[in-house]
């Protein structure tokens, strides 16, 4: 189980407080679909994903990105019990959505890139390390109920 120090929790909560979840969510999901195009396999009904600009401007991508990142925000409130917090979502992603957990790792790293892009120098090595722990913890929690 992943443990967060008080410093890590503080760094994470502080930065997250400044994140525009709607914007960052759309950006992260969009970049996932652009940088790792095979991830588009889960979104056949999203309409036009034929180019980078189509993907980044796609309203369904933005809406879904917001949903995903809002859920991620719940993780930040439950850093001491990620597996518990994501148990239901884990079952959903396995049984209904059939998403390979590797995709959670890919999205986590894209989110880190988006945060770096937005926050620049404020996203220093220590803050990045704390967020890498969160995204890894969320990915593992979402994979935990797979069978």
């Amino acid at each position, binding site marked *: 189980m992943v443990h967060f120090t008080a410093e890590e929790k503080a760094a994470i909560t502080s930065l997250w407080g400044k994140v525009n979840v709607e914007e960052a969510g759309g950006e992260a999901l969009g*970049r996932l679909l652009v940088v790792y195009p095979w991830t588009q396999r889960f979104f056949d009904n999203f309409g036009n994903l034929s180019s980078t600009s189509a993907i980044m401007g796609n309203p369904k991508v933005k809406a879904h990105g917001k949903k995903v990142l809002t859920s991620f925000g719940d993780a930040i409130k439950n850093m001491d019990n990620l597996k518990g917090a994501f148990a239901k979502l884990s079952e959903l992603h396995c049984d209904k959505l059939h998403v390979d957990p590797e995709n959670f790792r890919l999205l986590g790293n894209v989110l880190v*890139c988006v945060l770096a*892009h937005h926050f*620049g120098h404020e996203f220093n*090595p220590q803050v*990045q*390390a704390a967020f*890498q722990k969160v995204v890894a913890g969320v990915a593992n929690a979402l994979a935990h109920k797979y069978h």
Partner: protein
Amino acid sequence: MVLSAADKSNVKACWGKIGSHAGEYGAEALERTFCSFPTTKTYFPHFDLSHGSAQVKAHGQKVADALTQAVAHMDDLPNALSALSDLHAYKLRVDPVNFKFLSHCLLVTLACHHPAEFTPAVHASLDKFFSAVSTVLTSKYR
């Protein structure tokens, strides 16, 4: 996975913008890698890994110079990186998983310092480029 003409152009343009900061970014990417992925430190027991370490600075410059070479020879990475490929396969034997960690931290470093350049398309091209370099460097492992 193949680098398209657009990918090559994106990487050349971005790397060109970095200019003389390449060494500094190489060192920062290494520091980020050691912080976020502590298992990578096992390859550097002989280094001072504290912030500002001269050894990390020098090594970052080495990594950056190799990437600059790679950018200049994107049409023939296997040849351009042949000596480094031998080094990693027979001497350094860095487990392949670690190339992904360093590549990711290179992306993060570039995103921090060059937000205007780090568009989704450039992000994709850079990720492909680092992946191609990593593949060449691990190509003789077995």
